[in-house]
């Protein structure tokens, strides 16, 4: 089926588009696509890019206080990767026809959404471990699937990101594993981080599909290949064993292996908290927005200098 069928009839074009997606075709920027597909992708990709950028803030908080030079170098590299991830995805999103500056303006004005997880504070060093292990672990489950999505530029950006996320995931796990071999205080610190990050990490996959307004379209168009609940379950199944291996307890009394389904059963997620946080009432929403705006404003001289330098070279 030819995706770019020559006709002025939109419904005919849309049928051809849907058929070619079903046949496994990957959509490229210049291919015809339904306006809604473009809009949904832009919404999803810009939110994803913003999440990477805002994600630098909670971790950046610990760069000056990392417990050793090696930890500091690793953390700086990780935070730099998050900036890079944001740039890959902005670049991919721009192929859908929106300029990066417009997306960034929306973020700085507080009009754009980003992952709710980054509105939680990082109050101990163990939180840096929990972010790498749990938050990036959840992101890997999500992004490994997105790497097979129907939009070419997004899928290619995800492939690149997934390679780097494995480093993030392992360095985080190692921070906690190390603490769990330490003193009572260090073990307690690791467990405390686990207790605070576990549920927000599960919320990262989004609301249950029954309450996720965009899921049906995204699944039809293979932007999403699995439901939010499927991916959440996948994350839980692979993470429980990792927690047990280093002696961390998962803060869920209802967590139990189900021999019949071959999955872990787990307790009720507090969706009220999730909606509070994405609607601006999380512990750090205002702080993150302020930090991001400050970083942008404080970087103005770098952008000015680069531009002045380019202009000066042009005239010489």
């Amino acid at each position, binding site marked *: 089926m*030819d*995706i*770019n069928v*020559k006709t002025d009839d939109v419904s005919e074009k849309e049928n051809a588009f849907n058929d070619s997606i079903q046949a496994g075709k990957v959509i*490229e920027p*210049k*291919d*015809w696509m339904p306006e809604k597909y473009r809009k949904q992708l832009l919404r999803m990709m810009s939110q994803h890019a913003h999440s990477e950028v805002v994600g630098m803030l909670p971790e950046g908080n610990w760069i000056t206080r990392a417990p050793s030079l090696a930890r500091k170098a690793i953390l700086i*590299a990780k935070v*730099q*990767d998050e900036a*890079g991830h944001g*740039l*890959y995805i902005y*670049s*991919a999103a*721009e192929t859908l026809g929106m*300029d*990066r*500056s417009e997306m960034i303006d929306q973020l700085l004005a507080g009009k754009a959404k980003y992952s709710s997880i980054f509105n939680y504070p990082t109050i101990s060093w163990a939180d840096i471990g929990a972010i790498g292990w749990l938050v990036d672990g959840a992101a890997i489950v999500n992004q490994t699937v997105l790497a097979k999505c129907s939009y070419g*530029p997004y899928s*290619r*950006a995800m492939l690149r990101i997934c*390679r*780097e996320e494995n480093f993030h995931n392992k360095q985080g796990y190692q921070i906690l594993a190390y603490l769990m071999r330490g003193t009572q205080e260090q073990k307690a610190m690791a467990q405390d981080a686990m207790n605070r990050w576990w549920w927000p990490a599960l919320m990262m996959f989004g609301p249950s599909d029954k309450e996720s307004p965009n899921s049906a379209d995204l699944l039809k168009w293979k932007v999403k290949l699995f439901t939010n609940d499927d991916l959440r379950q996948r994350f839980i199944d692979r993470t429980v064993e990792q927690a047990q291996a280093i002696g961390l307890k998962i803060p869920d009394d209802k967590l139990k292996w189900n021999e019949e389904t071959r999955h872990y059963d787990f307790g009720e997620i507090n969706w009220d908290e999730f909606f509070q946080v994405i609607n601006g009432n999380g512990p750090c929403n205002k702080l993150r927005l302020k930090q991001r705006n400050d970083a942008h404003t404080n970087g*103005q001289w770098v*952008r*000015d200098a*680069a*531009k002045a*330098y*380019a*202009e000066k*070279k*042009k005239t010489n």
Partner: protein
Amino acid sequence: MDSNHQWPTWEVFTQKKQGAAHEHAGSVHAPDGEIALLNARDVYGRRQEGVNIWVVPSNAIIASSPEDAGSFFDPANDKMYRSPNFFKTADGLKQI
């Protein structure tokens, strides 16, 4: 208008190793080619992904149109004899 709003985009091509072809990696924003190269290195080459980078102004790339792909590539469509698989050779022959 903020100065970063006016930076054009540059398409980035990286060469994995000496002798390999350059491959499209993505794009960066930069005020000129020199800074585009530095940005491309930081964004697409943090882990020794390449030994060489090209940056090209995005608007300098001229692409064929997917809508016209049928007629555009038509000249190659009916010339199966250009493929070595087209030719039958002698039975039992191991190699030609």
